[in-house]
């Protein structure tokens, strides 16, 4: 093995190890990783962890305060709130994966095409994204979700529609810088097709800020989805979705505090976990952007 191959072969591993070390040093980051890990575990093992069915109605047991049988109390249909909160983690993770996954693919591809090809294509994508960014995100999402008809699926469509411009912009910025580097010119000179240059030479090098953006967005996606459900344009009862649960519980606020408290707490803790994780991932992958706590 020549000296430079060895050099390049070992570099990624040591950098990775350094990143992990840095992650463990930050207590807040560890906390974020722990919450996220716990959330995934709870969602994966929900049927085994939840003491009751999340949807089974039991009218004699309606609106019971927290007790040993029902640690989080029961709701207006006698359903166990703890079990519903546990199953709610599945709904939340599904929303996150779909929204972030879809926006990531759509936004990155549009940013890649727009940045690499330039010209009218670039102009079009950027002007359209300007328009989407000119709306307060939640208002636009509400309008789209309401027009399509209130449901969880339509709320996801609405969120993808408002979220892609961020990824398109981040990717485009990267592509513009990378496009000028010599190895792209070399690939062009070697006769590589535009598609090959975009996918093989440019995309892999602009993926890390996109991943940072995606992790930073996870918390916001959870908050937006919960807010849409709370207002009535997202998941509909009796789906065990946290925002929808708080929304119904609001009618029982005066005498039954536990109904809104526990699902809301689940949202807060989940979003906090994602935000701390996002900060940590940003610090590792993109130290130039390091800001704030």
């Amino acid at each position, binding site marked *: 093995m020549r000296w430079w191959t060895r050099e390049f072969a070992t570099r990624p591993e040591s950098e990775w190890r350094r990143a992990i070390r840095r992650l463990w040093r930050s207590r807040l980051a560890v906390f974020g990783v722990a919450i996220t890990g716990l959330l995934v575990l709870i969602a994966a093992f929900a049927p085994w962890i939840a003491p009751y069915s999340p949807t089974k109605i039991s009218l004699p047991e309606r609106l019971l305060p927290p007790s040993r049988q029902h640690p989080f109390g029961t709701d207006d249909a006698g359903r166990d709130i703890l079990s519903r909160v546990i199953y709610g983690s599945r709904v939340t993770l599904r929303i996150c994966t779909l929204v972030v996954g879809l926006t990531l693919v759509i936004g990155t591809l549009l940013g890649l095409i727009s940045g690499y090809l330039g010209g009218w294509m670039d102009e079009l994508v950027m002007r359209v994204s300007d328009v989407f960014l000119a*709306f307060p995100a939640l208002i636009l999402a509400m309008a789209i979700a309401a027009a399509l008809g209130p449901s969880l699926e339509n709320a996801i469509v609405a969120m993808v529609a408002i979220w892609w411009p961020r990824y398109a912009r981040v990717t485009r910025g990267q592509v513009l810088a990378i496009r000028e580097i010599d190895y792209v010119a070399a690939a062009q000179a070697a006769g590589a097709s535009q598609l090959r240059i975009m996918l093989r030479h440019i995309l892999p090098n602009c993926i890390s800020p996109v991943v940072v953006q995606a992790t930073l967005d996870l918390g916001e996606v959870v908050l937006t989805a919960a*807010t849409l459900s709370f207002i009535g344009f997202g998941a509909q009862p009796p789906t065990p979705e946290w925002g929808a649960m708080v929304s119904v519980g609001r009618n029982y606020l005066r005498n039954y505090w536990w109904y809104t408290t526990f699902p809301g707490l689940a949202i807060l803790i989940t979003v906090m976990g994602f935000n701390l994780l996002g900060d940590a991932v940003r610090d590792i992958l993109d130290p130039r952007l390091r800001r704030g706590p």
Partner: protein
Amino acid sequence: MVPTLLGVVLITFLISHIVPGDAAQLIAGPRATPEIIQRIRQEYGLDKPLHIQFAIYLGQVLRGDLGKSIRTRRPVGADIRAFFPATFELTTTAMLLAVLFGIPLGIISAVYRDRLPDHLSRVFSVIGVSMPIFWLGLLLLFLFYIRLGILPGPGRISGDPPAHITGLYLLDSLLTGSWRALGDAALHLILPSFTLAFAVLARITRMTRSSMLEALAQDYVRTARSKGLMERWVVVRHALRNALIPTLTVIGLSYGELLGGAVATELIFAWPGMTHYVVGSMTSLDFPAVMGVTLVIAIIYITVNLLVDLSYALVDPRIRY
């Protein structure tokens, strides 16, 4: 800015026309006869091709006519004028609270870096940006209104509102000298504006802290200290002024968040504002109202961000337009 505004009008128009099913049928209700539906279709121009409908709508918007609401049967413009002051009063108070507390908190956090005040403020800001606003509103309502009974519950005022001048209750009661209404309206504002301010407060604290840390590490700060200036003077005059630009950007961007957050806040506190109105319009598929309000909200957001851009020049004399 003009192409963006044109795009904004186009998007609001398109959203209102993706409604599944027949809009005329929706307006007419389930028991309408085909003749009535046909008449509604003509009245709202729904029988024309989409691009013609858009051209007509654009023409109306340019003349300041936002159409007629299906739900309230009043001009959308008049509805917005009626509901806008409540939202304006709420969001402005929230923004003032967020700036008044957020910037000092950020400064303290930076000055006491890695010591107790900094840790507390960082934990607070992590919680702040992660907090579901609607849940915080319910918690505060439960605690201060239902349990402790020390603050008024939903609504803008308990008795009669002050005589209408601007529609802003605080200002109107000041102008008409009705002190009882002033106190009452101010008390009603506390919970909703604090709820709404919370997330933005955390964001402003975060940004002020990090840009202050950057500014405090600069050479000119060391120079100022070595001249023997008082530390307070160094922090405020030398570091803060340079740290304010990123904070201003966050304030501008957060305004959109405030308008979004206002939706849940107005719903919880039965606040008769514009977003409360638009949620009702969205639920009943009153698309002229939805288009009108969405458009007005987008224009407010664009304007605020433009004003923020212009204010950079006030803070930083190196920037000139």
